[in-house]
């Protein structure tokens, strides 16, 4: 079956078996191996990607279910060599050890901060509970997400100012 996925802004048309999972299409057909596979039954969250802006488990989603959707993966965060504020904060705060859960943590954090741009550490801890990390004990991950929040608010307001300027120009 032929489907179209808009992944990190680029449209891809791929032919897939209906039973092929979204994460397998991302990794095998599109070569985007940043999204990791963990439990393959929707429990660990390492395969988390954004589908139309919402975090979902790509290991329990058939690729055909995402036909026509906008997908954002960890590869879509950095702009060239410039890291996304969340990536920067994870780096600075040591929000990872082995790194296996990190792509899922980052994508989940995107939605957490989109829904709640100024969360308390407790709120971050509640919301990030969807994703398992077996190394860090979560403390540094929570600190990283909290540190990223003001930077993302600043980036958002800068982008809003710029789009206003462009609109009035």
């Amino acid at each position, binding site marked *: 079956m032929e489907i179209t996925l808009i992944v990190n802004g680029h449209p891809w048309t791929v032919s897939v078996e*209906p*039973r092929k999972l979204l994460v397998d299409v991302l990794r095998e057909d599109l070569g985007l191996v940043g999204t990791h596979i963990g439990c*393959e039954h*929707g429990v660990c*969250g390492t395969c988390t990607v954004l589908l139309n802006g919402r*975090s979902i488990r790509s290991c329990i989603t058939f690729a*055909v279910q995402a036909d026509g959707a906008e997908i954002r993966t960890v590869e879509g965060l950095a702009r060239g060599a410039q890291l996304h504020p969340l990536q920067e904060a994870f780096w600075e705060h040591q929000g990872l050890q082995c790194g296996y859960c990190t792509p899922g943590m980052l994508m989940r954090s995107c939605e957490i901060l989109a829904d709640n741009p100024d969360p308390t550490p407790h709120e971050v801890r509640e919301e990030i*509970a969807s994703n398992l990390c077996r190394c860090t004990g979560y403390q540094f991950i929570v600190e990283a997400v909290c540190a990223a929040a003001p930077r993302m608010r600043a980036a958002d307001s800068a982008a809003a100012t710029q789009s206003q300027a462009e609109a009035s120009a």
Partner: protein
Amino acid sequence: MKPPPFDYAVPTTLDEALELLATHADDEPRVLAGGQSLVPLMNFRLAQPRYLVDLRLIDDLRAIRADGDVLVVGAMARQSDVQRAPEVLVGAPLLAEALGYVGHAPIRNSGTVGGSLAHADPAAELPAVALALDAELVAAGSAGARRIPAAEFFTGPFSTALEPGEILTEVRFPRRAGGHAFVEFARTHGNFALVGVAAVVELDGGTVVRAALALSGVAGTPVRATAAEQALLGTAADADAVAAAVEAGVAGLSPSGDLHGSPETRIDIARSYLRRGITLACSRAGDRR
């Protein structure tokens, strides 16, 4: 690829979906909603349907609306949308509260209300909510639509009154006065609960005039704690009345045990959580006591 092979259809109308189920009746067709229960089962090959009918393009099935005193939730309404919908917060706050316990946010972003009810996991939250609220589940079939009361819908573990070829289209939750509470015990937040309690209590002048209590995780289907409801009626829901109701509620339970908890453990948890649920629902029902 972990899931077994299957043929896949994604109709854009309900009639088309019903027709596909009828024409592929020999292939053990299954309806695909959000897939948050079915796809894991297929990854484990515990479910091996040969034909899947994906309902995601049938927009009519996503509506959330008020119909007089009834909250109508389309079967394909996403759990995260339902959890936040103003109509739900007003019309069925018990449903909104229970949804907070369904998996984690990424699961609710894909999972649907109808999918969870049709899957009928005995430990799941939404079947207990439907039972406590006396919801009606609307099934469409080739012969038309029928309304199934929640009390008749859940027939066993992962079994419902839906006939082959029928599709759950919407769920009708009557609006209930009074206070509500959904509480559950799970070993890990986001996991399936050992026991869940859905409670709605209405007070009049400090006296209980209506009580609806449903439990999950203590039988093959969600169960109404009818004896506990009766015991609460006419009381002021003080500590003694609540304690008597709780004992009446757990008296008839005979849950099975598994590695997550023995029958005794589950009854003990049911006792604690019934008390918490009743107490919270009563306190929300009003301060006129």
